[in-house]
C-alpha cells in the first residue's frame, strides 16, 4: 500500500508524458489556413520586466498590451521581482507555451543569457526593452531603450541652470550595478566638465554615493553627505525614488531652500514633486513609447520586414513649467 501511494505520482507522471507524445503522433493532420478560417489571435507576446512594482515597467507593460491587442496578439505579463532565477524559469515557461515572441527587461544582463539562448534554440525571437542583455551568444532580435547618456547630458544642463551660473558643490546618488544608470552619470559628468572648462562658476562634484535606486538608501546616503558637506548646493539622483529619498533628508536638515535636486525617470510621484518644487527637474523617459515601439518591432519581425535592431528614444527635460501644464497631476 505504502509503495503504491508513493509511486502514484511517478506512475501518473510517466503516463502523462507518454500521452503527450502519442497524442501528437496520432493526431491526423488536415487542411490548413486560408483567408476564411482565420484564427482568433496571431499568437502570444510574453513580457517579463524586472519588476511590476516599479510603475515604469508596468507602464511599459500597459502599452505593450494595448499595442499588441491592436495588432491582434494576445499578451502574457509576469513579474520576476528582480530575481533572475525566476525570470529564467518564466522564459522556460514561455518556451513550453510556445509563444510567438518574448519581450524582456533582463534582471541581470549576463545571468539571463542561458535562458535567452534556450529561447533562441526553440526559435522564439527575444526582444529587450530598457535594459540590454549582454550575455555572449544570446541572440536579441530587437531592442528599444532610452538614450541614457543623452538623458544624463540633459540632467547636466538642468544642473547648470539650477545653480544659476554660480556653480557649486554637487552630490551624485548613483546605482553602479545598473549599466543604464552609469551612462546617466557619464552623460551628466560630460556636460559638467565641458561647462567647467569655460565658465567662471565651476561645478564641483564633491561626492558620489550609492543611492540604490530607492528611497531608503537615497535618504541615508544624502543624510550622511549633508553631515560631511556643510556647503552642498545640489544633488543629482539617477532616478526618482532616490531623488525623493534625498529630498526627505534635505528637508529634515532644513536645507531645502538652498539645495536643488535633479532626478531622472519622470514617474508620477517624481513629476508631482517637480510641481511641488521639491525636485528641480527630471530628464524623463517615455515608457509609453517604449512599450508601443517594442511591439511594433515584434510585428515587423513577424511580417519578415527589415527594421533597425536598436531604437534609442531620447529623454526630454521635465521642469516645473511642464508640470504645471500636466493634467495627470494634482
Amino acid at each position: 500500500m505504502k509503495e503504491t501511494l508513493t509511486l502514484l505520482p511517478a506512475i501518473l507522471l510517466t503516463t502523462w508524458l507518454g500521452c503527450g507524445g502519442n497524442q501528437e503522433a496520432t493526431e491526423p493532420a488536415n487542411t490548413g489556413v486560408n483567408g476564411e478560417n482565420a484564427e482568433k489571435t496571431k499568437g502570444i507576446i510574453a513580457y517579463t520586466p524586472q519588476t511590476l512594482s516599479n510603475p515604469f515597467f508596468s507602464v511599459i507593460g500597459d502599452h505593450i498590451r494595448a499595442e499588441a491587442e491592436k495588432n491582434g496578439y494576445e499578451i502574457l505579463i509576469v513579474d520576476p521581482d528582480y530575481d533572475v532565477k525566476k525570470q529564467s524559469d518564466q522564459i522556460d515557461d514561455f518556451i513550453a507555451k510556445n509563444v510567438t515572441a518574448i519581450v524582456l527587461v533582463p534582471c541581470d544582463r549576463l545571468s539571463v543569457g542561458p535562458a535567452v539562448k534556450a529561447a533562441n534554440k526553440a526559435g522564439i525571437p527575444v526582444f529587450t526593452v530598457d535594459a540590454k542583455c549582454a550575455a555572449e551568444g544570446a541572440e536579441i532580435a530587437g531592442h528599444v531603450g532610452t538614450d541614457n547618456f543623452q538623458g544624463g547630458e540633459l540632467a547636466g544642463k538642468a544642473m547648470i541652470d539650477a545653480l544659476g551660473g554660480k556653480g557649486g558643490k554637487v552630490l551624485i546618488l548613483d546605482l553602479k550595478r545598473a549599466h543604464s544608470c552609469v551612462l546617466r552619470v557619464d552623460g551628466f559628468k560630460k556636460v559638467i566638465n565641458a561647462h567647467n572648462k569655460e565658465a567662471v562658476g565651476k561645478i564641483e562634484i564633491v561626492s558620489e554615493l550609492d543611492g540604490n535606486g530607492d528611497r531608503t538608501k537615497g535618504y541615508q546616503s544624502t543624510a550622511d553627505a549633508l553631515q560631511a558637506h556643510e556647503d552642498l548646493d545640489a544633488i543629482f539622483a539617477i532616478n526618482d525614488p532616490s531623488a525623493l529619498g534625498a529630498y526627505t533628508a534635505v528637508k529634515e536638515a532644513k536645507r531645502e531652500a538652498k539645495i536643488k535636486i535633479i532626478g531622472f525617470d519622470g514617474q508620477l510621484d517624481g513629476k508631482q514633486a517637480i510641481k511641488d518644487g521639491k525636485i528641480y527637474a527630471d530628464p524623463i523617459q517615455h515608457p509609453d513609447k517604449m512599450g508601443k515601439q517594442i511591439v511594433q518591432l515584434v510585428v515587423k519581425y513577424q511580417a519578415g520586414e527589415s527594421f533597425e535592431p536598436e531604437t534609442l528614444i531620447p529623454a526630454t527635460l521635465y521642469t516645473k513649467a511642464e508640470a504645471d501644464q500636466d493634467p495627470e497631476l494634482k
Partner: protein
Amino acid sequence: MKNLDNGKLLSDYGNVLVLLLLCVVISVVTLEEQSPRSTAAAENLAAIIVGGAGKDANILILVRRGEGQQEFANTLKNTLSKAGLNVTDTVVGTPADARAALGKQTEALDVIATDEHMAAFCLEQLPKLAKKYPTLANTTAYQPKKHLWPNFLKKENLLNVLKQISVVAIIAIGMTMVIITAGIDLSVGSLIAFSGVITALSIQQLSGGADPTTGHLLLGCAAGIIVCALIGMGTGGLVTLFNIPAFIVTLGVMFIAKGLAFIFSQSAPIPIANEGFAWLGRGSDLIGLPNSVVLMLLLYGIAHVIMTHTSIGRYIYAVGGNPEAARLSGVPVKWVLVFVYTLCGLLAGLGGVMEASLHITGDPKSGTLVELQVIAAVVVGGTSLAGGQGKIFGTLVGALIIGVIRNGMNLTGVEAHMQSVVYGVVILIAVMVDQLKNRAQKTN
C-alpha cells in the same frame, strides 16, 4: 491494525491527493489548441497536401526555425517529393527568410506547407505579397491540424516544473531533517549565493581566468559545496555547544554569508568561461530527463533510505520527538544535530552550484528568499515544525505542489502579487491540515 495503518498513510500522504487535484485543475484551465510538430504530423500533413493538390503542384516548405523543426521540414520534403510533387524550396528560418523565399518564386506557387507560426505569417502576409508577386496569386497554405491538449501536460512543461523545483527540493531534503529535529535553517538562501560565488571564483583562480577545463569546473563545484558544508557544521556547532536557538544562529549565518558573497564577488555576477558548466543545470542526458531532475530523484531515494532504514535516520526522529529521552537512551544528540546542519549546508552548497550552472554565472544576488520557499516545501509536505515527524517524500510532494501552482499561474498569466497571495493561502492550509492531523492522532 491494517485499517489503522491505511488511515495513517492517508494522512501522511494526503498531500499527494492535493497535488493530483491541482494537476487536474491546472490541466483544465490550460487546455489550449496545440499544433503538432512531430515527424508523424509532417507525414500526415504531406498526405493531406498530396490528396488536395494536383500531381505536379509546386510546393514551398516554410517552417520557423527551432529545435526539431529541420526534421519536420525534411520529413515534409521527402514525403512530398516521393509522391511526385515539386518542392521548390525548403526554408527553416525567421519570417524574414520566409518573405525572401516567397519573393524568389519564379513559377506559380500552388501550396505552402507550413507549421503553426509560419501559418500565422502566411495568413497575414500572403494576400499582401500576392499583389506584388503574381506567382503567389493562387497559393494555399496548409498547416497540421490542431488538437486540444493542456499546456500544463506538455512533456516540456512537466520537465520544466521538475527542473524548476530541483534546487528548492534538494535543499528541502536537508531542511526536512533539520526541522524533524525541531530546528530551522534560515541560512540556505544565502548559502546558495555564497556557494555560487565561491564556485565561480575558484574556477577563475584555478584556470587563471581563461578557458577552464572540466577538472577546474569540478574542483570549483567541490569548493563551493565543501565550504557550505563547513559553514553548516559551524552552525550545528553553535547550536549544540552554546545552546543558542537555531533560528538565531542561522539568522546570523544568513547575514554573514550574504554579505561575504557580495564582498567576494565585488557585488557583480562572475561569469564562468565554459559553456560546459551548464551541464548540471540545463543539460539532459538520461532518457531526456534534465540532469538536475535525475540528481534530485537520486538524492531523494538516498535520503528516504537514510531516514527509514538507518540508525542515523531513527536518531533524527528521536532527537526531534524528545531530545532528553533520546539522550538517555544513548542517542548522540549533539552529533546528530551537527550532522543535520552540515548536511543542510552541503545541500545548500549543491543548490548554489546548480543555480550557478543554470546561469553559467556565480551571482551574489541569487538565492534571495529561497530559504522561505524551502521551508514552505517542507511544511506543505507535512513535516511538523514541532519536530519528530515528517517524511522525505512528503517534502518532494510539497515542493511539487508549490512548483505546480507556480507553473500553473505563470502559464495562465496570474498577476505576481496574486501569486504571492495564493502561496500564502496554500501554506496556511497545509499547516492547518497538519494541526488537524495531529489532533486526530491524539484522540486516536
